[in-house]
């Protein structure tokens, strides 16, 4: 910088000041974004969101405040219209158990096995209210997404025979508590809890589920 003439030195100083300010503001915004709701975020939450979204969104509550203590299995069954016009309902397919088997002994689990269904079901849960009504655009998108995943997976499991059509699908979750460690002396109910979603009609032509 010393090798610069005065006007260029002023320019360099200005750049230094701008970079310093932007870096500090950015770090401040990220801090407020990851911090719990507080006085500043209540007053300036909109400014923080404007800065952070969409590209600097982040969530580092890794297994915090508490790790998940339940296994949430997503299961699906289908109503199938056979080629002779009859209709039958399949048994429940445990798609999470399929994921679990694919992950077992796998040093490099794929996002398709570890994240796709698990996070889609999370997304569905977080975009629907307690009564199961979709909340806004995200609710509608989540329902289509989950439906498309289960249709794809039913196709892979050959739920519908040749010539049959998937007419409707129904998803349920089976929640089982992880048994507490034996040294803790805690007692947790080992009875699974079910949550059943409504039947969804599979639009004509979508029964193949897209990707094979």
């Amino acid at each position: 910088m010393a090798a610069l003439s005065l006007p260029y030195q002023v320019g360099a100083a200005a750049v230094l000041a701008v970079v310093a300010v932007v870096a500090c503001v950015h770090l401040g915004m990220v801090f407020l974004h990851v911090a719990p709701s507080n006085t500043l975020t209540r007053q300036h939450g909109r400014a923080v969101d404007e800065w952070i979204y969409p590209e600097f969104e982040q969530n580092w509550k890794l297994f915090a405040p508490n790790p998940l203590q339940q296994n949430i299995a997503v299961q699906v069954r289908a109503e199938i219209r056979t080629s002779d016009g009859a209709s039958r309902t399949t048994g429940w397919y445990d798609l999470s158990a399929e994921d679990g088997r694919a992950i077992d002994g796998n040093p490099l689990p794929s996002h398709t096995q570890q994240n796709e269904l698990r996070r889609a079901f999370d997304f569905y849960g977080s975009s629907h209210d307690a009564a199961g009504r979709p909340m806004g655009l995200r609710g509608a998108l989540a329902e289509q997404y989950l439906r498309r995943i289960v249709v794809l997976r039913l196709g892979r499991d050959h739920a519908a025979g040749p010539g049959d059509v998937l007419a409707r699908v129904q998803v349920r979750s089976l929640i089982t508590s992880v048994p507490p460690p034996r040294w803790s002396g805690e007692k947790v109910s080992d009875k699974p809890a079910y949550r059943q979603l409504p039947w969804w009609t599979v639009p004509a032509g979508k029964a193949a589920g897209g990707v094979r």
Partner: protein
Amino acid sequence: MSTLAQSLSRGIGKVTESALAPYQSAVIRIGFSGTWLLFLLREFPHRQELYGPDAPWNWDLARQLTENNGAFTVLLWFRGRFWFEAVYVLALLASALLLLGWRTRTMSVLFMLGVLSLQNRSVFVGDGGDNVLHLMSVYLVFTRCGQVWSLDARRAARARALRARGQRLPDRAGPVLWSVLGLALAAVTAAGRLQGEWFVPALLWTVWLGQALWWAAGRRARWNQPRILFDVVGSVVHNGALLVIMAEACLIYATAGWYKIQGSRWQDGTAVYYPLHLDYFSPWPALGDLMSSSGTMVMLVTYGTVMAQVAFPFTLFNRRVKNVLLAVMMTEHAAIAVVLGLPFFSLAMITADAVFLPTPFLRRLGEGAARARARLRRHPESTALPEPRSAGDSEPARVGFPA
């Protein structure tokens, strides 16, 4: 007062005259691009299901969401299968070339485009590892991460040697790459396909124009003053981005740690037991059972994790404690990679940790790698590594900001 002014001016001199931490920035360049490269290769058979136009999260669903949140993705510019395949392959290629440090700045931009495009296209298939890569791919664009351990450094050394003899190293690839990418950017902008918020398009245009100015200033002798100014700007931006990367790593640990303190399971010392028994995070159930067979062991790991995460940012003020904790964190992430089945998340976190590694250690690592390569090739004269342009990298590393 005068000592304050002195140290201030020393500090300003330091951040303006050179791009600091050449080895650390090279390590994170290699680490993040390598992680993404391995991830893309691993998911290659599943690419259609994750990011393809007919994926469960299909093109229409993705478009509705991104129109709503303004996220940037080139995958929504066109719908066809060919476009998707091309983008996936280009993302692979950009990661590989960034890893090698070929045209590092341009590749860092293309690498960022690949990461943002795929991740923003299907946000709901990602996890913490994707999140780290997403942020770091943007930050890397602002760094001079090819000063060492790169093809660019090798070419710069050759150019310097030629210049000493009064010759020039001709550069054809640079202008061609710049023109092609500029044309593509102009075409996409003119066609109105650049979607998303202003930030990424503005960044693309800024880097493109900046490269033209840098190139022009390097060619004209009369442009000596602007050239020095651009060099200062490059260094200042690099140093600012490096500060942001380091602070981001601290924020990750601080957030993870401080939220855990509030959790009852982290307080009663059983927290680590639970993820080991989740079906989605237990690829080796027997290993999990073994690790959780002792309550004391689980308690020690549980408390140790929280303490290490909370303490990490503060240990940066003491070089020795920082290095010990760094080793602890890297070991823990290596264990997480295997035990919880999160290899790419762990690799990304280990890379983020690596920005704090001391320079002497990294230099030894580099020399060891060069020797190993030379032995393989039986070319003993090629053991010398390209040196960074900046002076002062032989100084002992400083805490947090190793020279």
